[in-house]
């Protein structure tokens, strides 16, 4: 490779000595002469030949007098204080550029061998040789040696841009790396790899150093010489801890460069460092450590992003929606940590390709199976075990990965002394299957399937179970260097059931299910260096069984009742353009338009306008046939992002988003419970609407070693559901009569200081935020707090989180988490009175008080086994203590009247320090 380069450059270098002697002289007097005319005149009286873009010079006029001047003298005068630059090569070609300079001088050390050949006294004048674009701070890596020539070789480089495309792959497993940054530094042009690891960059032709970075991977550099459009695949190596000398500096600058804001990314390594209460890496618990994410308490399924409801998060697992992301009351998340690749949380600018939820998108993706060799991994704990097997079907092209996880706590429950515990049962398991196949260079196929099942029984009479199903098929196709597409089909379902047999007369079974089928097409089109377009469409079909209540057993008198099925179509189209207005100002403008069609068969009640909805105000009842259109909602959603880069180390971003959500979670409990269920918007329940404005400032210190940012936001929501007192949610065919709609507003500011890499890594964040609701329904007599704004259940203004990891040696690391937050709001009793023979309490306004503040410290020690290559299995141990200080953080505060008096209690879930041990292996 080097040889080719020498032969290419040598003739150019040999012209060094030739030119200084007889430089052509130019004479003439010009007044407001158009540049093009002046060029003609100069070309006529000299051997020079000009190359320039007319659109750049058509406003340039020449006023000067030349008497036997050299061309550089004239051009220096002409371009003084202007953004124009010029370069003249040995063949008297003159290149005029605007905004950037063609470097023509070879620095010392560019070619060691050539430097020795070049006599030291040879004083190479300026601008005599056009070599190419060049990176002065070029850094060699062991992988980056050599020059990669891209495209059809030509003797001279053409002007303008060429498109470089390719794929970034993990060298060990062959799986594509998603979200890797591919960029050149001067001028700063970059992109990220798409979900299949592809990138596409439009670069000026010539020589560049391509940088490829990704979290948890070693940085790669490639020296390229770009002749024309072409391809370059790049393999990356994981940042193995034993290679101490490699500084892991992935993700540096990423926070500055992307237009989107409020994106949090976690990789598996970070996930595994965060100590958890159950000894297993846990996605949802890790997400909760991010700024702007809160929950109502430990062991709760839902999380709240920037003051939004728990149902306003779109949780995607390999592009398929997951409705209940947790096992065992939220002690475990539904995602097996062994197969995860990364997790992205979008909390302020939500790309136009996502829709259907107001607050956030949590995009969880699993790894592809190993395409090179068979491998396995797993872990064993006292109540859970997990195992993953993966390997190639066709080497380097097709891989399969199968993994399972099971909880076997029943045997422990049986050993307990308490009778209620002994007759209780709790267990869960989940299964994952992933197949990926590379058909050819332009087509890629992957299939993912997921199943989870939970079952628990309290005492011996009531059994709860719930299951998640999902499957997705993705086909990625590359049309050209500039355009690729991703087609996907997915199916997701969530089912729960309750079975009671305590009293044979009232014994019942209750079943609920929701299923959605979705087809999506997403296109990416790199129009030119300034415009990068994304567009696509999706079709989504919902089918819900909102409740089926059946007698259980012969003696049961329960009235079999089945609520009407609900079905709907949610379709959307979108387009977004990432537009580089100048090199420092980028606009990402997106528009999504969504349509929601509520379909029959359905019975729909009309209510008297201007009156509360109740059985007494029904004015008409309409029956709709199967698939008949009942109601359509539609509207645009705007997704705007603006990035203004303030030099190399800081940037300013702003975003404005509007969103629509056509599905509601019905729950009147504090925590999300497994029996909460989803309801579609219908003629009487309006879709939820939201908008968010955010502003952020990002600054990188110490060359990206430390990232600092501050983001602030203001958002409003409409039509979020709250419940009338005494509302029946289960088996209610007219839920619209029992709910009230609320308006919400949330605002806050988030400070984050992050050290992404190094021996000591982690982050410190502080958030101040508020989340308030107000009954927004004039048609209800239910006036929570007299119609004033009241704090939502997850309004926790102050939040400080520290996540830290220190690596002592390659095999020993220590993690520390500290988190503090204001206690969540609660409705407190404020007065006592006697009623029905007992003392009772009268409650304050909704959420007028707070439970005591939350504080928790966790530590973990990770010990890796040795890294001998030929070992049968690699293993690691994690020793962790959750809630080290043993603080009894109240989960819930409640008051009960017992035997005639009112007593207050607080309940904590983890009342002591909880040590755990986990053993993990890999082979």
């Amino acid at each position, binding site marked *: 490779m080097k040889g080719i380069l020498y032969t290419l450059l040598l003739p150019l270098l040999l012209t060094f000595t030739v030119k200084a002697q007889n430089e052509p002289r130019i004479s003439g007097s010009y007044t407001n002469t158009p540049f093009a005319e002046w060029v003609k005149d100069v070309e006529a009286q000299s051997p020079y030949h000009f190359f320039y873009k007319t659109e750049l010079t058509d406003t340039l006029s020449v006023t000067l007098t030349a008497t036997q001047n050299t061309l550089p003298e004239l051009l220096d005068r002409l371009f003084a204080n202007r953004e124009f630059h010029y370069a003249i090569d040995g063949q008297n070609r003159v290149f005029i550029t605007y905004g950037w300079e063609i470097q023509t001088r070879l620095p010392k050390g560019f070619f060691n061998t050539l430097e020795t050949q070049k006599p030291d006294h040879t004083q190479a004048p300026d601008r005599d040789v056009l070599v190419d674009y060049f990176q002065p701070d070029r850094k060699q890596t062991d992988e980056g040696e050599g020059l990669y020539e891209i495209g059809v070789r030509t003797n001279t480089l053409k002007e303008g841009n060429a498109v470089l495309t390719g794929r970034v792959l993990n060298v060990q497993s062959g799986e594509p790396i998603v979200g890797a940054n591919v960029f050149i530094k001067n001028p700063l042009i970059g992109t990220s790899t798409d979900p299949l690891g592809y990138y596409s960059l439009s670069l000026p032709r010539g020589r560049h150093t391509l940088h490829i970075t990704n979290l948890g991977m070693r940085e790669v550099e490639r020296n390229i010489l770009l002749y024309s459009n072409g391809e370059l695949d790049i393999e990356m190596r994981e940042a193995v801890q034993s290679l101490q000398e490699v500084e892991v500096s992935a993700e540096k600058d990423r926070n500055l460069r992307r237009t989107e804001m409020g994106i949090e990314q976690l990789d598996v390594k970070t996930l595994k460092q965060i100590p958890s209460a159950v000894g297993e890496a846990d996605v949802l618990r890790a997400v909760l450590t991010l700024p702007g994410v809160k929950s109502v308490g430990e062991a709760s399924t839902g999380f709240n992003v920037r003051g939004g409801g728990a149902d306003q998060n779109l949780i995607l697992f390999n592009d398929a929606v997951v409705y209940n992301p947790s096992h065992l009351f939220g002690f475990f998340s539904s995602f097996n940590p062994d197969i995860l690749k990364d997790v992205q949380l979008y909390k302020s600018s939500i790309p136009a390709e996502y829709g259907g939820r107001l607050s956030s998108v949590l995009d969880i993706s699993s790894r592809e199976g190993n395409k090179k060799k068979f491998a396995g991994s797993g872990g064993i704990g006292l109540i859970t075990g997990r195992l993953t097997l993966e390997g190639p079907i066709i080497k380097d092209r097709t891989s399969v990965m199968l993994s399972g996880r099971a909880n076997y706590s029943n045997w422990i429950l049986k050993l307990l002394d308490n009778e209620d515990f002994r007759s209780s049962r709790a267990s869960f398991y989940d299964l994952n299957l992933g197949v990926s196949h590379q058909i050819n260079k332009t087509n890629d196929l992957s299939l993912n399937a997921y199943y989870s099942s939970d079952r628990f029984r309290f005492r011996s009479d009531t059994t709860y179970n719930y299951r998640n199903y999902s499957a997705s098929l993705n086909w990625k196709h590359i049309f050209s260097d500039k355009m690729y597409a991703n087609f996907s089909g997915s199916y997701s379902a969530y089912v729960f059931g309750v079975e009671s047999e305590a009293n044979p007369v009232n014994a019942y079974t209750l079943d609920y299910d929701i299923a959605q089928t979705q087809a999506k097409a997403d296109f990416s089109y790199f129009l030119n260096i300034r415009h990068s377009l994304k567009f696509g469409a999706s079709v989504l079909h919902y089918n819900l069984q909102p409740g089926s209540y059946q007698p259980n057993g012969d003696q049961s008198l329960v009235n079999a009742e089945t609520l009407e099925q609900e079905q709907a179509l949610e379709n959307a189209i979108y387009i977004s353009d990432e537009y580089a207005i100048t090199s420092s100002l980028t606009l990402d403008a997106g528009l999504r338009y969504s349509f929601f069609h509520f379909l029959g068969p359905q019975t729909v009640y009309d209510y008297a306008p201007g009156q509360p909805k109740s059985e007494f105000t029904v004015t008409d009842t309409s029956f709709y046939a199967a698939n008949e259109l009942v109601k359509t909602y539609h509207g645009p959603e705007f997704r705007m992002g603006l990035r203004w880069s303030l030099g190399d180390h800081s940037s300013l971003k702003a975003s404005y988003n509007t969103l629509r959500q056509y599905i509601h979670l019905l729950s009147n409990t504090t925590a999300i419970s497994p029996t909460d269920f989803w309801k579609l918007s219908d003629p009487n329940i309006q879709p939820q609407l939201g908008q968010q404005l955010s502003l952020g400032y990002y600054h990188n210190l110490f060359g990206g070693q430390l990232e600092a940012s501050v983001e602030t936001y203001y958002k409003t929501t409409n039509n979020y559901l709250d419940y009338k007192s*005494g509302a029946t949610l289960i088996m209610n065919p007219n839920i619209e009569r029992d709910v009230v709609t609320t308006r919400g507003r949330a605002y806050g500011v988030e400070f984050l200081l992050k050290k992404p890499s190094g021996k000591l890594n982690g982050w410190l964040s502080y958030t101040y935020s508020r989340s308030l609701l107000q009954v927004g329904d004039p048609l209800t007599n239910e006036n929570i707090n007299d119609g004033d704004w009241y704090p939502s259940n997850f309004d926790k203004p102050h939040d400080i989180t520290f996540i830290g990891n220190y690596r002592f040696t390659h095999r020993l690391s220590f993690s520390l988490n500290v988190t503090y937050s204001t206690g969540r709001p609660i409705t407190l009793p404020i007065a006592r009175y006697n009623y029905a023979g007992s003392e009772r309490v009268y409650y304050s306004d909704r959420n007028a008080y707070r439970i005591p503040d939350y504080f928790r410290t966790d530590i973990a020690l990770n010990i890796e086994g040795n890294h001998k290559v030929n070992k049968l299995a690699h293993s690691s141990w994690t020793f962790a203590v959750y809630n080290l200080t043993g603080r009894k953080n109240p989960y819930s505060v409640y008051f009960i009247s017992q035997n005639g008096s009112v007593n207050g209690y607080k309940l904590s879930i983890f009342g002591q320090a909880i040590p755990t041990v986990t053993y993990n292996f890999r082979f």
Partner: protein
Amino acid sequence: MKDYWKYISLFMISLTFSGCVEEYKPDVVNAPNNFLVVEGTLLDGDSTVILISRTSSLDSLGIRPVNNASVTVEGSSSPPFALENSGNGMYKALLSLDAGQDYRLKIEADNQVYYSEFVPVKNAPEISNVGWDVVSGNAVQINVSSGDPENNTLYYRWDFTETWEYRSAYTSVLKFEDNEVKPRDLPEELINTCYRTRESTDIYAASSTQLNQDVISKYPLQLIRLEDDNRLDRRYSILVRQYALTREAYEFWDILKSNTENLGTLFDPQPSQLPSNFYCDTDPEEPVIGYLSAGRVTQKRLFIAKDEIPFSFDFNRYPTCSLDSIVIDSTLNYNYFSNSFNIPVDAYGIFEPTHYLHAPPSCVDCRLAGGTLEKPTFW
């Protein structure tokens, strides 16, 4: 090895799921809390009692009855009828309600005028059965079954009065009277058998709307753990009263119950705002607590004798009691029994009584455990 694993697992689970409940007394809450509380049902052909009180702050003791109110019942087409103030916040009347009319309550107290909404007269159907079952091998669950063949009632509420017979540890046949120990007149002067009566303190309300008949089957009322108290030691009786509710009244009772009895587990609902059908006419901002219903009440009584329980049990209710003896000697006996620390139980001796057996009053006099000696008329 087996034991080791068992030990480790128990250790782990007890640590991992170490949820704990502690007492919590927030040093809140000084909000103004002087709200009117009205409790009672307008009963047709039965003694109606309306209880009026005011709320007090959480850390204060006792209830605050309103004794200066004037209370009247107004029918939608009948003249107002005043209730009689019988003290302690109670206002009584014997009413005869007309099923075709709606009724409301008017309360004038502390310079404010309060009204209830007009409520319909809803009569309760007969109780089909009050029964019991042995549960968990050591407790008796009292239950009520009911129903309305016309399918009109749907919403039910019950309260009850329990009465039970119990005995003191020792039967005293002697008494200390006029400074000497004398035999008691039997059986009139026995103080070993008492009857205790207690009103229900919890809320029992149910609906049959989920069933295809208006039937309530074995709705659980009182649970008696045999180990914990003496209610079934001899004979027990419960008088269950049944009220028919409107849907709105049922919601009130249901919310009141879930707000104050049911909270605490992870998935319980938040306290919700308690509805009321009372309002302050002179100050609409002032909340009033309570819900008025009207109608006829039905009732049914159940008896359970100890020998009906299908197994035998005998718990010592007086583990600290023991008999002591003292030589019969008039001076000594005077000093011993006159201060009421001891009550003579019986006397013993070989040829003639030489010693009295005695015990502390709580072991001898059953009235000290809260009951009365009078046998109820229904017993």
